[in-house]
C-alpha cells in the first residue's frame, strides 16, 4: 500500500474510532461532526487519542491547574466530628435525647427511634496560620493544614456504603458507570506510555463493598478502567513472565509475533493489527516500567521512615509513597482506598473509642509525609491530593436495635461531611462551607458531589458539561443530569 493510502486509512480508522466512541449519527455524519469540532461546536469535547494508543496524552480543552490527581478514599466514612469539624455545641448536648426535628422525614441505616446526642470524642485545637481545627488524632497532618483546603459542607443523597461510594466515584448510585479516573484518562490520556494511566492501590483488608465497580470504566471503553497495582505478588496482573522464560527469549518471541502480525497486516490491511503490534510492544515496556515504579526499596531510608513505609507490606503508608512515585512517573490518576472507617460502634474494630484510633494512626503520618514530599519536589503545584469518605457520621450516638451499645459509634449521615484537597490549583490554608452547629447538615455553602466532581474536572482542564458520552439515551456526564457548579471560591 502506498504511504498516502496508508495515511488515509489511519485517518479513517481514527475517525471511525471517534465515531464509535461518540456514537454520533452516521459514519459520514461522524466525520462531519468531527470536522465541526474545528468550527467551534461546543456541545461535546471529543478527546482525539493516537489511534495506536487510546491512552496517549490529549491537551486539556481548558487551562489545567492540576495535571494529575491522588485521591485518598477512607472506605466506610470517617467521622468528620472526630477529625476536622469541631462542634462545641454538640459537646453541650452530649447524652441528651435527639430532638424530633432531626429525625422527622429522615431515613437511617441503623438508628432507631430516638437516639442520644454524642459530643466530640477527642479534643480539638487550631493549627497553622490558617487556624484550621484538627483533633488530636491527626498530629502529623495538623502540621500540614496550611497546604490544605477543607470543604466542610459536603453532602450526598446516599446513606448506604455501596451506593454512596459509587456516588463519590462515579456520580451514580448504581454499578455500571465510569469512575472519575476513567473520565479523566478518557479525556486526557496519560503522560507515561509505559504505565497504566489510572492506577488503584488498596491498603489490604477487604475490598470496598462494590469492588471494582468503583474503578470501572462503565460504558466507556474498558481501556480506561482503573488498573489495580499491588505491593504483593505481581504489581499488575500477569506482568511477570512465566518461570523459566528469560527476558531475552521473551524479546525474541515478541519479535516473532510482531513479524508475523506485520505479515498479517500486509495480507488483510486491517489497521487494528498495527495497533495490536504497538500494544504488545507497550506491554513489553510495561513489564520493565511497572515493577520499577512499584519498587519502594529504591527510596531512601529517610523517606521510608517519613512515610512509615515498609517494603513488601500491603499498607496505606506504602501506597502513599507509591502514589508519589507514580505521580512522578506521569500517571494521570492514582486512587487509594483505605478500609475500616465504618465506626458504628458495633464492635471494637469499628468503634469511635477503639478501632478508629488505630485507623487514624495508620493514615496520619503517611498523609503528612505525602504532602511534604510532593511540596519538596515541587509537585504539589500540579498534583491535586483529595481526601474523603463516602458520607459523614451522625451527631447522634448509634443505638442499633433500639438500646445502648457497648462501644461508641455514629451512624451514616449523608447530610454533611468533610473532605479536603491540597495542591493542584486549590487555595491553600482555607476552609469552605460550614455544617450546622451540631454537624448534622451542610448549612453554609453546601457542596453536592456533582459540584465536587465539576470542580475536580475543572482543575484538570475539563468542562463537566462538555465531557459527556451517549449511553441509554442520555449524554451521560460524571456530574449527572442536575446542574452542577464549579466551586470557584476554592480555586487558587
Amino acid at each position, binding site marked *: 500500500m502506498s504511504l498516502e*493510502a496508508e495515511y*488515509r486509512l489511519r485517518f*479513517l480508522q481514527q475517525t471511525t474510532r471517534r465515531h464509535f466512541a461518540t*456514537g454520533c449519527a*452516521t*459514519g459520514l455524519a461522524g466525520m462531519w461532526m468531527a470536522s465541526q469540532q474545528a468550527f*467551534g461546536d461546543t456541545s461535546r469535547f471529543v478527546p482525539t487519542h493516537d489511534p495506536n494508543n487510546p491512552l496517549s496524552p490529549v491537551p486539556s480543552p481548558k487551562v489545567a491547574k492540576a495535571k494529575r490527581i491522588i485521591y485518598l478514599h477512607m472506605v466506610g466514612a470517617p467521622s468528620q466530628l472526630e477529625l476536622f469539624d469541631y462542634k462545641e455545641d454538640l459537646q453541650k448536648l452530649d447524652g441528651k435525647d435527639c430532638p424530633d426535628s432531626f429525625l422527622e422525614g429522615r431515613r*437511617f*441505616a441503623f438508628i*432507631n*427511634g*430516638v437516639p442520644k446526642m454524642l459530643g466530640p470524642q477527642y479534643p480539638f485545637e487550631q493549627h497553622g496560620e490558617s487556624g484550621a481545627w484538627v483533633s488530636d488524632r491527626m498530629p502529623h497532618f495538623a502540621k500540614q493544614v496550611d497546604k490544605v483546603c477543607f470543604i466542610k459542607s459536603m453532602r450526598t443523597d446516599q446513606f*448506604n456504603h*455501596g*451506593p454512596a461510594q459509587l456516588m463519590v466515584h462515579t456520580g451514580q448510585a*448504581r*454499578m455500571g458507570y465510569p469512575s472519575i479516573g476513567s473520565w479523566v484518562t478518557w479525556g486526557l490520556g496519560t503522560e507515561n506510555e509505559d504505565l*497504566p494511566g489510572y492506577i488503584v492501590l488498596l491498603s489490604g483488608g*477487604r*475490598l470496598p*463493598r*462494590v*469492588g*471494582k*465497580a468503583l474503578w*470501572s470504566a462503565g460504558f466507556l*471503553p*474498558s481501556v480506561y478502567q482503573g*488498573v489495580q497495582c*499491588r505491593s504483593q*505478588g505481581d504489581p499488575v*496482573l500477569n506482568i511477570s*513472565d*512465566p518461570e*523459566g*522464560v528469560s527476558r531475552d*527469549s521473551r524479546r*525474541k*518471541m515478541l519479535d516473532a*509475533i510482531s513479524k*508475523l*502480525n506485520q*505479515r498479517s497486516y500486509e*495480507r*488483510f*490491511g*486491517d489497521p*487494528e*493489527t498495527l*495497533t495490536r503490534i504497538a*500494544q*504488545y510492544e507497550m*506491554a513489553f515496556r*510495561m513489564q520493565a516500567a511497572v515493577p520499577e515504579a512499584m519498587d519502594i526499596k529504591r527510596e531512601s531510608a529517610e523517606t521510608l521512615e517519613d512515610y512509615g513505609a515498609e517494603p513488601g507490606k500491603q499498607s496505606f503508608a506504602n501506597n502513599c509513597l507509591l502514589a508519589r512515585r507514580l505521580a512522578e512517573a506521569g500517571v494521570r490518576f492514582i486512587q487509594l482506598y483505605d478500609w475500616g472507617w465504618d465506626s458504628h460502634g458495633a464492635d471494637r474494630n469499628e468503634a469511635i473509642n477503639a478501632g478508629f484510633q488505630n485507623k487514624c494512626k495508620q493514615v496520619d503520618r503517611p498523609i503528612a509525609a505525602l504532602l511534604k514530599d510532593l511540596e519538596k519536589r515541587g509537585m504539589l503545584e500540579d498534583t491535586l491530593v483529595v481526601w474523603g469518605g463516602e458520607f459523614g457520621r451522625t451527631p447522634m450516638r448509634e443505638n442499633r*436495635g*433500639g*438500646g445502648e451499645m457497648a462501644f461508641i459509634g455514629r451512624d451514616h449521615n449523608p447530610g454533611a461531611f468533610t473532605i479536603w484537597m491540597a495542591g493542584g490549583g486549590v487555595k491553600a490554608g482555607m476552609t469552605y462551607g460550614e455544617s450546622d452547629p451540631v454537624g448534622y447538615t451542610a448549612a453554609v455553602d453546601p457542596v453536592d458531589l456533582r459540584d465536587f466532581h465539576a470542580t475536580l474536572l475543572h482543575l484538570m482542564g475539563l468542562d463537566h458539561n462538555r465531557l459527556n458520552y451517549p449511553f*441509554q439515551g*442520555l449524554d451521560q456526564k460524571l456530574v449527572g*443530569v442536575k446542574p452542577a457548579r464549579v466551586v470557584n471560591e476554592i480555586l487558587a
Partner: protein
Amino acid sequence: MSFSDPASMSHLMVIRKAILAIALATITCWSPWVLAGEPGDSTVDSRVIRFNEDIRPLFTKHCTACHGGVKQAADISFARPETVLPPDGWAIEPGDSAASTLIERVTTNDESIRMPPPEHGRALTADEILTLTLWIDQGAKWSRHWSFEPPVSPPVPEVETADWCRSTIDPFVLEKLEANGVVPARDEAPLRWFRRASIDVTGLPPTDDQRKRFQTLLAEKGDDAYALVVDELLQSPAFGERWASVWLDQIRYADSKGLGLDGKRNVWKYRDWVINAFNNDLPYDEFTRKQIAGDQLPGRTIEDQLATAAHRLTQTNEEGGTDDEEFRTAAVLDRVNTTWQTWMGITFGCVQCHSHPYDPIDHDEYYQFASFFNNTRDCDLNEDWPTVSVPLDPSDFDRASELDREITTLRQTLWEKDFDLLSDDKLWKPVTSLEASSSNETKLVVNEEDGRAEFKTVGTVQRGVTIGLQASVPDGLDQVTAIKLTIAPQDTETAIQDAEWGFVISEIKASLRQAGSDEPLPLDIARVLVDEPTPFYDPQLSLNTKSNRGFAGYTKIHYPRTAALVLRQPLEVSQDSTIELSLDHRVFILASFSLVSRRGWVHLSDDPSLIENEQDESLIASRRKLRELTGKRSSIRSTSVPVLDERPDHLKRPTNLFVRGLFLTKGEPVSSGTPDCLPPLKQFDSDPSTASRRELAEWLVDGNHPLTARVMVNRIWARIFGVGIVATEEDFGSSGEPPSHPELLDSLSVQFQGEFGWSMKRLIREILISRTYRQSSVTRNDLPFEDATNRLLARGPRFRLPAEIVRDQALAISGLLTSTLYGPPVYPPIPDGIWKPFQGSDKWVTPAPGEPGRYRRSIYTYVKRSIPFPMAAAFDAPSREFCTPRRLSSNTPLQALMMLNDQTLLECAEALGKQMSRVDGSVAKQIAHGFETAVCRPPSPQELDDLRDLYQTLIEQNETQPMTILASVLLNLDEVLTK
C-alpha cells in the same frame, strides 16, 4: 421582525437566494460525502426531501434539546408534529417556507432571536437551511420515525450480476454496491470461511477433523458443501453456549447479587435454560413469552417459571440498613429499561424522569409500562424470594411440573376456604377494650378507632419486643372459636404507596383469664389461617417455639394483614373474662430494622364454622393429600432459583408516577399500558386495570410490533458482521443511526417473524450461506472511506473475537477444552489476590491442573459483578450490572499480558507445544501442524521460516521448552485473535 412586514419578506428572499448559492458551493466542496448519501443530484430543486432521512436528524440535533420531550419551550416539540404543524402548531406553514417562522428564526442575523440561540449551539449551515426550506415547500410531510412503522417485505431488487447472489440477503447488498459502482470482494478462501462460520455458530474454531471433512465435502459437492456444514454446525450443542452469551449480555446475567455484599445468587439454571433454548431452537416469540410472563402461562411448567429468572437478575442490596423498597423499585425500573432495550432497542431510561427527549413517549407512559412489573412478590429480600425449586436433572422436569401444578391448585383451593372465613365480617366481633404491654423499651398506646380498640407503638421500637395484649370479650359472646389478629401499617393511607417496614410474629401464645383467676389458661390452637395463599414464612411456625418465623408482613407492609388462630375446641367465656395474646418478635434485618408489629387490633368469633372447617373430613383429606404431594416433590433433588410471581389481587401494589423519577415522591396513580406511539395492547379481557405481563409478551411478539423482529435480526447480524444494519443496536429511536440497508433489515425481519417462524437458527443460516458473508475480509484499498466501517458490506467481517471466544478458542486449539454442557458455575484459575469477596463463604476453588473442571467453556465461569473474571474484563466483556446492548472493543497492553502470561494461556501453550512435538516428522512439520490448528490454514513459506528461525534461536539460547514458546506465539497471532 414579523411576517406581516413586506420589507422583511423581501429581505428573507434575498437571504434565501444567498443561502442557495452557499448551499451549492457547500455541496460541491463536500461532494464525496454528500454523493455517498444522495447519489446523482445535479439540481438542487429536484431534491426530494424525506422527513426521516433528512429532516428528523436536524430536529434531533439542533432543536429537541429545548423543543422536545424534556423541555417544550413555547409548547413546541419537534418530536410531535401536532405542536409544530397547523392547525394547532404555528412554526411551519406547509408549502410556504417564506411564511414559516421556523425558517425565519434559523436564518435571521439577529442573534437575539436566532435559533438555536448562540449559547445553545451553532447556527444551521446553509445546506441544513436549504434542506428545511425545500422540505417545507414540498409540503412539510411528517412521517413517523422509520422504526415505528411495521416492516414490510420489500420487492427483491433487480441487480446486474444476479448470479453472484446465494441467499435472499445478497440482492439487497449487491444493489447498494452496484449503485455505488463497487464490485463485491472475492470469496474468502474456503478454510478461512469455514473458521469464520464455525466461530460464528459455535464460538469455537473447527477441529482438524472438521476441516478435513469440509475439504472432502467441498471436493465432492462443490458449493453445496457450504450450506451442509452450516447445518451441521447449527446442530452442535456448542451453538447454544456461544449464542447464550449474547443473550446474557442483554439480560444482565450474573451469579451474584450486585450491590451491598454482592453475595452469590443461585441462578445458573436460568443460564442453562438459555443455552438449551438456543440449542432446541426455541422460537423467539416463545423465548420471549416465557421470559416475560412464564409464570402466567396456562399450565405453566417449571421451565416456564425458570425463564422468568430473566427479570430476577436485577441487582439487589443486602447491605445492612438499606431500604428494601428503594432497591425493589430500582429493580422494577431496571426490568422496564431492560425490556425496552433488549426487545425493542429503545432507550427508555430517560423517560423515568421526564418525557422522551426525541421520541414521542411520555413520562406517564413509562410508569404505565412499569406497572406491568410492579406487582411481583420479590422485594429485595436477601433470600432472593420468591423462588422455584428446579430439579437438578432435567429429566425430572415433567414430573416436578405436574406435582407443582397439583400442589398449587390444591393449596389455592384450601386457602380460598380459609380466606373466606377470615374475611367474612359476619363471623367476627371487634374487641373494643384492649390493654397492651411491652417487654422492653418499646412504648405502646391503645386508641379507640372505628369502633374497635387498637394498639400502636410510639417512638423508638426496640428489637426483640414481646407485645402482650389483653382483650376483653365483647358483649354477647358466650364462646370463642377463633381469634383474629390484624397487623396494620401505622398510616394505612400512605403505606399502600410507600410501604412501611413489616413484621414477623415469631411466636403467638393465647390464653384465657377468667375473672378472679390468677392462672391464665393456655389455649390450644389448631391452625393459623392467613390472608395470602403462599406466604414467604409458614404462618404455622408462629405456634412453634423453636422457630423465629411465622405470620409476617415480610419485609414490608402495604395493607392491614390478618391471621386467625382457630381453637381446637370452642371456649366458654364470660363477659368479664379476657383473652390474652403474646406476640413475640425475634426477627430483624441485618442488625438494623426490627420487624415488629407497630399497630394492630383483635376480633373474636363464636361461629362454629371455623372449628368445623378444621374437622371437615374432606378438607382433612385434602390437607393430607397436600402434605403427600409436597413430600413427593421435595424428594426430587432440586435447586431454588429466583423467579417472577404475582402478588394476590387483594394485596396488589399500586403504581404511581414518580415525580422526576424519584421513588420517594409519588405522583398520580397509573395502570398498566403501552405507549401510544406503538400498536395498541390487545387485552384478553376488557378490564384495562388488569393488563398482565402475558398480554405484554403477546404485544411484543404477535407480529404487529414494529421493533421486536428488527431488533433481534439486527443483533444477530451485528454479532456476525461486527456492526449492525442499524449500527446503534441500543437505539432504534430518532437519535439512533438509520439502517445502512433498510430494505434488507425489513426483508429479514419479515422473514424472521413469518416464514422462519421466529427460528434463530434459520435466521443465522440465512446469513451464513449468503454470498455477502462469504466475501473475503481483506481491507478494500479501493474504498478508503466506505471500508472504514464496512457499511457497504463490500467485504467480509473482520474484528477481534469476544472475550469468551478468545479463551475458549485457546482451550480448543490446545485440546484442553472440556465439552461438558450445563451445570453450576465453575472456577478456572485466576491470579492470586484477585478473589477478595465481601463474604468469606464465597469461595473460588479452582480444580487442579489436568482436571476437566478447569477447562470448561467461559460461559460457565462464575460471574461476580464486583470481581469480574480478569480475562473477561481485559477483553471487554461487560460486568453485567445492566443490559449491555453491544460491547465496545478495545486493544490494550493488558490484553497482551493476559495472552502471554495468564495461567490458562500458559497451560494452553504447553498443551499445544506437546501436541506439536508429538507430530511425526521434522520440526517444520510440527510447526506447520501447530499453525494450521491455530490459524486454520497452512502457513505461508515466509511464516514458516519466521517460526523456524525463532525455534532455532531458542534452541541456541538453551531454552528448555522451545515448542511451548512457539505455541504461545501461535496463540498470540493477530489472525488467531481476530475473526
